[in-house]
C-alpha cells in the first residue's frame, strides 16, 4: 500500500511535467505577446518590437523559454502580467475563493449523487425512481448559467423574503469591505451567504451525471451473487444494501468523481461569471484571455492541471483503499 502510493505520486509528478509542457505549447502557439503593441497607432517601429521581444525572452528557442518558465514556476514565480504585477500574487487569493466553492461543490455533489443513485437503484422502476430520473435528466439538460439565473432570480429572492433579511447573496464572494467593520463571525456568515447559491449551481451540474452513474453501479452490485448470499446468511435487505451494496458501489464512483474535477473547474468559470465572483475563472477570462496575457493563462491552466492530477492521485489511492483486490497488484 505504501509503495503503491509512492509509485502513484512519482507517476503524477511526471504527468504534471508533461501537462505543463502541453499547456505551454498550447499557449505559445495561440497567444501573441506582441499583439497589443501592434494595435497601437501609429505602429511602433520594428526595432521597438525587437526590443520587447528581447525583454520577454522571445528570441530564445521554444524549449529554453519553456525551461525558463518552468523553473520559475517551481520557485513559485509564475511571471509577470502585462501590467507588470506578479501573477503569483493574484493566484493565491483567487484560488482560495474558487477552491472553497469547488471543494464544497464536490462534497455536496458526491453526497447527493450517492443518495439519489442508491434510492433510484433500490426503487428501480418505481415512481420514486422515475421522479428522480426525470429530475436528474432535467438538470443534465440545463446550461449552468441558465439554471444559475433561475437560482438568482427566484431562490435567492424567495429565501430572503421568507426570512425577511438578506441571507443569500447573488453577487460576489463577500460583501466588499466587510472585513473593515464586521466581526469574525459576521464575516463568516456573510461568506456562507455568498457561497451557497454558486456552490449549489456548480454542484448540481456534476451531481446529475454522477447520480446516474451511481445508480447503474448500484444496480450492478444489487444483482451480484454476494448480495444474495448476504441475504441468505440472515441479513435484512436494508442491512445488505448498506453494508455490502453501498460499500462495493462506491468503488467505481471514486474514479468518475476524480475525472469530473476538470469539468467542475471549467464549470466554475461560468459560475463565477454568473455570480460575479473574483476568483480564478474571472482571472482567466478578464485578466488572461481578454487581455491576451499569456502568463495569467499559463498560471491558470497549470493550477487546474495540478487540481486534476492531485484528484486523480487521490482517487487512485482511495480506489486501492476501497478495493482489496487492487492493493496487492
Amino acid at each position, binding site marked *: 500500500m505504501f509503495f503503491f502510493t509512492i509509485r502513484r505520486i512519482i507517476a503524477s509528478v511526471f504527468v504534471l511535467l508533461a501537462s505543463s509542457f502541453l499547456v505551454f505549447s*498550447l499557449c505559445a502557439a495561440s497567444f501573441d505577446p506582441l499583439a497589443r503593441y501592434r494595435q497601437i497607432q501609429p505602429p511602433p517601429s520594428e526595432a521597438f518590437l525587437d526590443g520587447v521581444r528581447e525583454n520577454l525572452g522571445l528570441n530564445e528557442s521554444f524549449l529554453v523559454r519553456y525551461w525558463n518558465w518552468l523553473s520559475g514556476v517551481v520557485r513559485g514565480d509564475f511571471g509577470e502580467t502585462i501590467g507588470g504585477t506578479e501573477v503569483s500574487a493574484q493566484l493565491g487569493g483567487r484560488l482560495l475563493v474558487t477552491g472553497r466553492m469547488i471543494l464544497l461543490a464536490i462534497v455536496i455533489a458526491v453526497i447527493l449523487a450517492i443518495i439519489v443513485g442508491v434510492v433510484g437503484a433500490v426503487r428501480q422502476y418505481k415512481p420514486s425512481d422515475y421522479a428522480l430520473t426525470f429530475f436528474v435528466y432535467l438538470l443534465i439538460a440545463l446550461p449552468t448559467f441558465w439554471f444559475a439565473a433561475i437560482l438568482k*432570480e427566484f431562490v435567492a429572492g424567495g429565501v430572503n423574503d421568507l426570512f425577511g433579511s438578506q441571507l443569500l447573496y447573488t453577487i460576489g464572494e463577500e460583501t466588499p469591505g466587510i472585513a473593515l467593520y464586521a466581526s469574525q463571525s459576521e464575516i463568516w456568515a456573510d461568506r456562507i451567504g455568498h457561497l451557497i447559491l454558486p456552490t449549489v449551481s456548480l454542484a448540481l451540474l456534476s451531481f446529475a451525471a454522477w447520480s446516474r452513474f451511481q445508480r447503474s453501479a448500484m444496480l450492478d452490485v444489487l444483482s451480484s451473487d454476494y448480495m444474495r448470499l448476504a441475504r441468505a446468511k440472515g441479513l435484512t435487505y436494508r442491512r445488505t444494501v448498506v453494508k455490502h451494496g453501498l460499500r462495493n458501489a462506491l468503488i467505481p464512483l471514486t474514479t468518475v468523481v476524480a475525472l469530473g474535477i476538470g469539468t467542475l473547474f471549467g464549470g466554475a468559470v461560468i459560475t463565477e*461569471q454568473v455570480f460575479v465572483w473574483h476568483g480564478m475563472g474571472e482571472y482567466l477570462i478578464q485578466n488572461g*484571455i481578454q487581455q491576451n496575457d499569456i502568463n495569467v493563462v499559463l498560471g491558470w491552466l497549470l493550477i487546474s492541471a495540478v487540481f486534476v492530477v492531485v484528484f486523480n492521485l487521490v482517487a487512485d489511492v482511495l480506489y486501492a483503499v476501497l478495493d482489496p483486490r487492487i492493493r496487492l497488484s
Partner: protein
Amino acid sequence: MATTHAAAEAPLPAVPGAPLGGGVEREFTVKARSQRQQIVRRFLHNKVGMTGLVVFVVLLAFGFLGPLIYTTSYSDLNSGAQSVPPGSLGYPLGSDAIGRDLLAGLMQGVQRSLFIVLLFVGIALPLGLLVGALAGYFGRWVDSVLMRFVDLILTVPLLVVLIVVASNFPSSRTPLGVGIILGLFGWLDLARIVRSQFLSLREKEYVEAAHALGASNSRIIFKHLIPNALGSLIVWTTLAAATAIILEASLTYLGFGVNGANQTSLGRLVSDGVQATTTRPWLFYFPGITLLIIVLSINLIGDGIRDAFDPSNRRVRS
C-alpha cells in the same frame, strides 16, 4: 432464463459443450440479423426512447419546416416593435430589444444548433474512433503514446481549451467555427471508450479466428470490431451531441461562441435571454426551454438506444 434461439428443426446436442458441426457460418449470420431486429424492436418498445425520438422529430420539423410556413425573418429589424411581449400582433412569442421576432429566431436557432451538432459529430466521431481504434487494436506503444496524449489534454478542462482556442480565432464566432472547434477537441472521451471496447473485443475468440484465417487488420477492424462496438458509438454520439449543444451555449455565454451580426444559435438566444430574466421574461424562458427540450429529447433517445443494445440492466434476474 436462457432463451432458446434454436428452432425445432435444429436439434441441440444434449451433452453440453459438444462441438458445433457445419453450418456455423450460416447460424452466425442468421443470429446477427435477428439481433439487429431485436435491438430495433426493443427501441421501438421503449417508451422513454420513443418519446425522445418523437419530440426530437417535432423539433426538427419546427426548425426546418417551420420557416416554410412561418415566413417572418429573424433578420428583419423593426424599430416600431422593440421588446413587444408574446401574443402581440405579428409576434407570437414577442420580440427582442431591436425588434427581431423571437419565434423566427428560435426556428433559426434550432437549425443552427443542429448544424453545429452535425459538424461536431462529423469531425469528432471519426477522430475519436480512429485514435481509440489504433490504441485499442495495436496496443503496446501505440496505445501508450496515444492514450497518454489524451490523458494530458484531459488535464485541462474542455471548456477552457475551447475558450483558449476560440479566443485566438475571432473569425470562429459563427456556427461553423464553433462546430469545428467542438469537433476538434470533443473526441477525447470517445477515444477512451473505443479503446477499452477494442481492448476487450480483440481478445475474443472470433477475432483470433479471423486472424488465424489471415484476415487483414483493416478487415478485422471494420468487419468485426466496429460492428461490435456500434452500441457504444451510437450511445456516445447521442450523449455527446446533447453536451455539444450545452457547450455551445456556455461558450457563447462567455463571449467565445456564436457572436456578431446576423449570427444566431440557441446558445446565443439563451445567453441574451439571461440578461432579461425579469424585464423581458419571454426572452429568457422560450429559448431556455427550447434548448432544454432539445437536449432532453436527445438524451432520452440515447437512453433508449443504450437499453436496446444492452437490455441486461432491464431484464428480471432469475
